[in-house]
């Protein structure tokens, strides 16, 4: 049964905010990695024994959490068209995963 017809059903905005933010976080991870690999931007090393991965991953997590907080604040009480948001989240996510894959780095260097 469609939830829109359930009494007391929550609007889908918070769910879409969570999924889109995960897509943004995934893309941020890929972008930070490719910028690091091409020498354009290097995230600071936060824990020397682990090296650059500590800064890159922490930065991506911060981007994800900020995006989630911002989207949640805007959408939590709204019904949002899910198809466009789901497509955007999926594209961001797949792009991020691709950018984290070493064979792709060669295309940019």
């Amino acid at each position, binding site marked *: *049964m*469609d*939830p829109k017809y*359930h009494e007391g*059903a*929550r609007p*889908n905005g*918070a*769910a*879409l905010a*969570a*999924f889109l*933010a*995960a897509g943004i*976080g*995934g893309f941020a*991870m*890929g972008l930070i*990695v490719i910028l690091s690999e091409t020498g354009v931007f290097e995230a600071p090393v936060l*824990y020397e*024994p*682990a*090296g650059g*991965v*500590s800064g*890159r*991953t922490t930065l*991506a*997590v911060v981007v*994800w959490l900020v995006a*989630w907080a911002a989207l949640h604040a805007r959408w939590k009480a709204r019904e949002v068209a*899910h198809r466009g948001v*789901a497509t955007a989240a*999926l594209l961001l*996510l797949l792009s*991020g*995963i691709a950018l*984290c*894959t*070493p*064979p792709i780095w060669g295309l940019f260097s």
Partner: protein
Amino acid sequence: MDTLLFSERSLWTMLHGVVLGGGSLMALAASLFSLCSMRAVATSGAAADQQARHLATLLVLTAVLLWLALLVGTYITFPPYRAAPPEGLTDLSAYPRALIRANPATAWLHSFAMETKEHVPWIAAMLATAVAAVCLRYRSQVLSDRPLNGMATAVVTICLLLVAYAGVLGVFVNKVAPLE
């Protein structure tokens, strides 16, 4: 006993890969099965609420296991993996990255496998956290709302594939150059 069966580094590696990584894989598989099977029978009411509560608990457990696997992997097992050997050392068995890179036949285990493993699982943890938060907030609506259930199922599927992919790469690395 003169020698320990497992070194401390080896125990941390097993905790990272087998307990936390393997546990999150099993929890993801169970979550995916639950999302697919419960939607067919979920209605409103106490039974659906109870099912949704179990699913939310499972997904929270999944996210916690994944974050712990990441933190242990990145901050405890990765540093000894990437440690540089002293100049002139010929036995590289205590330095997995150097050992792997010294042989052209295994160099890809660092340049592809480990480089991928450093970042991709973090994306999986973001996805698992997102879907756990959605299940906590929406409860039985995740089972009865078709678009919401579809998105949650897709996210858990992608997460499962990413964790399985990273796990297999980790097994390859550990088979060739274990942290002893």
